[in-house]
C-alpha cells in the first residue's frame, strides 16, 4: 500500500515518537539512586529516642502540611507551642525547631527535594526569607 505525502507525515511521526519517548532516552537507562537523607547531626545524635515530630512515614509525606499549619498558627494566631500526638511540646518554628535538629539542610531536605524535582534554591522558596543553617560544605 502506498503512503501519500510520506515525507511530512513520517517526519511528523518521528518527532512525535521522539517526544513521547523522551524519558526513555533522556535517562539513558541509568536510574539515579533514590535519596538517602542523613540524620547524623549533633542534635539528633544526642537524642535517646530518635524520633521526629510525627511518625517517620507521616513526616515523609506530610511535613509541608505541618509546616503550613505551623506558619498559620504562629503568624495568624500567635500560638507558638505545638503539642505532638505523644504529648511532647515543640516550638513551632522552621529555623529554630526543624533546622535545629536537621541542621544538615543540604544533606537532608535538599537530598529529597532535588530528587523529587523541586528546584534547588528556588522551591521550596522558604529560604529567600528564612535563614538556612550554616553548614561546612
Amino acid at each position: 500500500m502506498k503512503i501519500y505525502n510520506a515525507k511530512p507525515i513520517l517526519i511528523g511521526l518521528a518527532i512525535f515518537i521522539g517526544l513521547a519517548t523522551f524519558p526513555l532516552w533522556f535517562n539513558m537507562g541509568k536510574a539515579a539512586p533514590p535519596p538517602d537523607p542523613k540524620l547524623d547531626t549533633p542534635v539528633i545524635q544526642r537524642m535517646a529516642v530518635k524520633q521526629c515530630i510525627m511518625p517517620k512515614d507521616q513526616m515523609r509525606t506530610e511535613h509541608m502540611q505541618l509546616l503550613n499549619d505551623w506558619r498559620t498558627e504562629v503568624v495568624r494566631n500567635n500560638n507558638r507551642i505545638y503539642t505532638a500526638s505523644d504529648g511532647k511540646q515543640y516550638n513551632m518554628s522552621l529555623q529554630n525547631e526543624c533546622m535545629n535538629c536537621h541542621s544538615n539542610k543540604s544533606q537532608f531536605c535538599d537530598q529529597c527535594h532535588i530528587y523529587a524535582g523541586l528546584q534547588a534554591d528556588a522551591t521550596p522558596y522558604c529560604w529567600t526569607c528564612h535563614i538556612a543553617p550554616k553548614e561546612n560544605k
Partner: protein
Amino acid sequence: MGIKFSLLTVVALVLAVFLGVKAAGLQYFFGVIFPYAAIFIFLVGFIYRILKWARSPVPFRIPTTAGQQKSLPWIKQNKIDNPSTTAGVVARMALEVLLFRSLFRNTKVELREGPKIAYQWEKWLWLAGLAFHWSFFIILVRHLRFFTEPVPFFVHMTDRLDGFLQVGLPGIYITDLLFLAAVTYLFIRRVVIPQVRYISLPADYFPLFLLMALGLTGVLMRYFTKVDVVKVKELALGLVTFQPKVPEGIGVLFYIHFFLICTLFAYFPFSKLMHLGGVFLSPTRNLPNDSRMKRHINPWNYPVKVHTYAEYEDHFRDKMIEAGLPVEKE
C-alpha cells in the same frame, strides 16, 4: 444511558485497582506490567492509525477558507486564512493546533420570535477547550519531574510559573484548578445543551470521566491524602530505565491515578482522542490553496486509452479526401 455506562466503567476501573492493590497485592501488575503494556499499545496503535490515514490519497486542494485567496495583484490576499505557500500553511496549522482558531469562529444558531434566525457569538467552548488542553499539556510537562533525573530546566521553569501563586503548602498549581474547571464545564455542556446531549455517545463521556477522575485523584494526592512522592519517582524512574521495581508503601491513591492514565493511553489509539495526530492531517487546514498555480494530478488516475485527432486522420484520411473534407496532412 451513555453517561451511566461511562461513569460505571470508570468507577469499576477505580474499584478494580483499589481491590487489586489493597486485597490482592497486585502492585507489580498495576505498577509495572500494565503501564508497559499501555505504553506499547499507545505507541504501536498511534503509528498504525497515522499510517493508515496516510494511505488515503488527498488528490485535490479543499479550500474551505475564511479569507481572500491569492488572485489579482491589487486584491489583498489573506495569507494565513487562505494560504498559497507552505509558510502560510504552517502559520495556519500553528494557529489551529495551538489556539484552536476554527473553534474560535464557533457560532450558535437560534430561532427568535418572528420567526427570525440569529447567529450568536459563542466562545465558551473555545475557551474551555483551550484551557483544558493547555492545562493538560502543562501538567504533563510538570509530571516529567517523576521520569527524569536530573530534572531538565524547562520542567523547573513550568513548575515555578504554574506555582507562582505560592498559596499553601504544597503550593497550588493554577493548571490544577483550570483543568478541573474546564473538564467539568465540558461535561456539563454535553449534558445541558439538548442538541449536544443528543449526539453524545459513551465514547464522548468515557474520556471525560476518565480525565475527571485522573484530575481528582491527582489533586487529592497532592493536597489532601499525601503519597510518598520520593517512592513514586523511584517507581517511575525504574520503569523508564527498564529496571522496574515497586517500592513498598506508596499509597493506593497513586495506583488508581497511575492506572487511570495508563487506561487512557491504552484507549487512546482506538478513540476520538486520536485527534491529537489527526489534526495535523486535516485536509482543509494543511493544504495550500494553490489549485490555480499548480496542477494537482489525481494519484489513482490510470492511463486512459485516447484516440487523438492525428491518429483519427491517419485512419480515415483516404475517406476524408474522397468526401472532400479538409485534412491537415496530405
